[in-house]
């Protein structure tokens, strides 16, 4: 029998990840913990070697495409009209909590690495660039569980829906700095990477909206969107533009030019989101290296605590600037602790950049560990916030 190859590897990871996720749910653990454990089981140090799985060889294009899908959906979730209607409070709170987490994680980890003599500013910047993202699904699940409603709930919903867009923009800017050879070089690269991505995504989105409108058959919606997405990713990579920013802009522009609810261009890919996260977590799990993790426990602790402090402090400041009532200012940051799929996808992008070397592996392992911690404390913090704010409508409902 010949070696089964990458398609077998992907199928195996998906199948075992899904089963492990379901089992984790049965015993009261977060589903992503099961995904990660399945990935760890197939890492090179464990079953991966015996089964001759070579995840690192095929995962970069798959994770790029998967992250492109998420960026496209994030871009397409927002319209300029919604931003205007949501008002100042949600925008200032999103800016505060997202940038607060990035700044505090960056400063804390820089100080931590400097104190241990590591002096790796790029590692601190890489970890900080991922810190702004949250996991809306976890927060929404808690709200649903408590049938929550009120000013805190509504502000929180707006913030968690918006902040991944800001997180992806911050990450794309940080990537320019991380891969630039000098500050001057970084400036030139930034113009090309960001400007090129905006033009590519904007033109692509316009074409997608126009072409999508001409399509008569519903069965062609998914192939057309996938083609636009992959072409944008490929072209961005070829011209040196930011692929993530290009797909984020593609989604935003397609929704803008289509001038509609977006079911036609976005619903087919929204149905794929769980599969995308399953890929992220199992692939990230296969990157798990106990040695790297054991060597940097202080980075995990520093990242989790600094991110939480940055989120709560930044959100409170942003909410106050936006004129929020005290109950929102006081508690909103606690609803923003969960972090999951988008952060892991961004960390994988860093790990697969050849220029980052060992720092890329450290980023994946630190983010993976912190995601697992946040998956446990995030829902607890969110439910505490909703209950203290008096917006938990009743006893928690058991989830299906």
């Amino acid at each position, binding site marked *: 029998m010949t070696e089964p190859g990458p398609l077998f590897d992907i199928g195996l990871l998906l199948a075992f990840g899904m089963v492990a996720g379901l089992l984790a749910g049965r015993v009261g653990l977060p589903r992503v913990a099961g995904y990660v454990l399945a990935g760890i089981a197939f890492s090179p140090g464990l079953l991966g070697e015996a089964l001759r799985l070579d995840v690192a060889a095929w995962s970069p294009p798959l994770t790029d495409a998967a992250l492109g899908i998420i960026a496209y*959906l994030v871009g397409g979730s927002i319209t300029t009209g*919604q931003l205007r*209607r949501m008002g100042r409070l949600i925008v200032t709170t999103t800016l505060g909590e997202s940038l607060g987490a990035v700044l505090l994680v960056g400063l804390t980890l820089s100080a931590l690495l400097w104190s241990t003599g590591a002096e790796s500013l790029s590692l601190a910047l890489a970890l900080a660039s991922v810190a702004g993202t949250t996991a*809306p*699904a976890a927060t929404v*699940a808690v709200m649903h569980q408590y049938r929550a409603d009120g000013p805190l709930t509504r502000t929180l919903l707006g913030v968690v829906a918006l902040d991944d867009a800001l997180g992806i923009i911050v990450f794309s800017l940080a990537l320019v700095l991380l891969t630039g050879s000098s500050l001057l070089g970084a400036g030139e690269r930034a113009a090309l990477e960001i400007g090129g991505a905006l033009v590519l995504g904007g033109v692509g989105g316009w074409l997608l909206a126009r072409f*999508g409108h001409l399509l008569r058959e519903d069965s062609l919606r998914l192939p057309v969107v996938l083609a636009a997405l992959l072409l944008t990713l490929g072209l961005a990579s070829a011209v040196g533009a930011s692929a993530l920013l290009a797909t984020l802009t593609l989604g935003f522009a397609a929704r803008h030019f289509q001038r509609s*609810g977006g079911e036609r261009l976005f619903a087919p890919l929204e149905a794929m*989101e769980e599969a995308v996260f399953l890929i992220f977590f199992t692939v990230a799990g296969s990157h798990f290296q106990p040695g790297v993790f054991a060597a940097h426990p202080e980075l995990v602790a520093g990242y989790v605590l600094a991110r939480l402090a940055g989120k709560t402090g930044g959100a409170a400041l942003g909410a106050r600037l936006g004129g929020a009532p005290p109950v929102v200012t006081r508690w909103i940051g606690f609803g923003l602790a969960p972090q999951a799929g988008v952060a892991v996808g961004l960390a994988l992008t860093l790990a697969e950049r050849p220029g980052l070397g060992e720092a890329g592996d450290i980023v994946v392992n630190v983010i993976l560990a912190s995601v697992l911690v946040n998956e446990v404390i995030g829902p607890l913090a969110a439910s505490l916030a909703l209950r203290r704010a008096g917006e938990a409508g009743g006893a928690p409902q058991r989830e299906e």
Partner: protein
Amino acid sequence: MRTADWLRDHPRDPLLVPHDAPTAEAAARLLEDGHRDLFVTDDEGAVCGHIGHLRIARLLLAEQRPRLSRRHLLERVAGGTAADLMERHFAQAGPDEALDGVIHRLLDHDQDELPILDDDQRPRGVIDLSAVLRTRLTEMTTGS
């Protein structure tokens, strides 16, 4: 039979809402009239979009769902107009098309009503899927 002939025998007006009507108003209109399809008009009165019953239900009952996409989250928080909810691509037909040649469009688009539109997209009426099914059932049972 042409679609215009069907409308003559089975007249039914479409439920219309202006594109700038708030989503709550559009939802109330859809529920009051007992229709399952709402058609959105532009400033000139031409039909430019469609909102289905399920789309409205998903918006109004969003808090009942344990998982929401970011797009649906923002819809829930930001509200909006009928134009923000509608789909520009929907099943429709012209007055001179053959009925047998257009009914499949309803089935492909998960709509119950097929709007019959003039060249300038103004509505002449809608063909109700239930009425078509009743006619078909009668034909089958009487063998005509």
